């Protein structure tokens, strides 16, 4: 999941070399798609959002500082891009139509968990996604989201608390 991209490829892609950019896409597509999937829980939306990630990457590659590691910068770009994309598609925190209704979701604990994640504030969703997708440390999540580690700890704590509150009425399904 965590790709290792040679320095010369990154520098080529920064200069606008399309072949180098293609190799960056190949190396990061699984990560990008899974970030998008875990923030949408829908394959078609995740594909659209992943494409948006790469269009933004292509436009903004010049802003990447090659003296810094690429992945934290990429995770940040990808997470922000998907959250912005979702806001445009489903404004005002409206849940996407493909999600099962609460009564339907109640039949599947996993669906209920996914729905509960999507109901979290965007910053909590980002934390949960980065934490459980790649098992990142608090410091790595902080780097990716551009916030202090203390903030990430708080967000993770509150995100878990919020999930617990949402799932508590269905406790018997999880035990």
């Amino acid at each position, binding site marked *: *999941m965590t790709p290792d991209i040679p320095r010369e490829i990154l520098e080529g892609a920064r200069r606008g070399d*399309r072949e180098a*950019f*293609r190799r960056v*896409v*190949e190396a990061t*597509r*699984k990560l*990008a*798609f*899974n970030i998008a*999937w*875990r923030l949408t829980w829908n*394959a078609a939306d995740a*594909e659209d959002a*992943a*494409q948006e990630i*790469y*269009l933004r990457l*292509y436009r903004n590659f010049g802003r990447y500082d090659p003296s810094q590691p690429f992945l934290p910068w990429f995770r940040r770009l990808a997470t922000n891009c998907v959250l912005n994309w979702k806001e445009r598609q489903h404004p005002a925190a409206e849940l996407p139509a493909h999600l099962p209704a609460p009564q339907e979701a109640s039949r599947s*604990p*996993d669906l209920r*968990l996914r729905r509960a994640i999507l109901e979290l504030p965007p910053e909590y969703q980002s934390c*949960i996604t980065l*934490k*459980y*997708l790649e*098992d990142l440390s608090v410091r790595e999540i902080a780097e990716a989201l551009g916030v202090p580690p203390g903030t990430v700890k708080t967000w993770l704590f509150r995100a*878990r608390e919020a*999930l*617990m509150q949402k*799932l*508590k009425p269905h*406790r018997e399904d*999880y*035990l």
Partner: protein
Amino acid sequence: MRCDEVREHLESCGECGLYLEVEARLRALPVVEPPARLTSRVLRALPGPASTARELVRLAAAAAALLALTASLLLSGLDRHPAAEEARARGEEILQAMVSTLNPLRSDRPWKH
């Protein structure tokens, strides 16, 4: 607290049990494979480099439009209109003023108009 005490607590405490179960489910969320077409789709959507031929066509179109505008002005006699004459005279005055302002700054070779 010893291991068996922790285990005993987890078995009896619904809240901690739920916490652990949710944590386990979060860790077990699947990692999915992206569609095979994703890379080609992305590459097709990238903005293409501006082609030289397309740039030349745009320049030629702009030059042709300018030429047509100049020709129509000359043919219509608008360039001999008193307002056009006056504008030309004002332009001359402004140019002269600029030259006389800038000349002292160039001691070696004064500009001439």
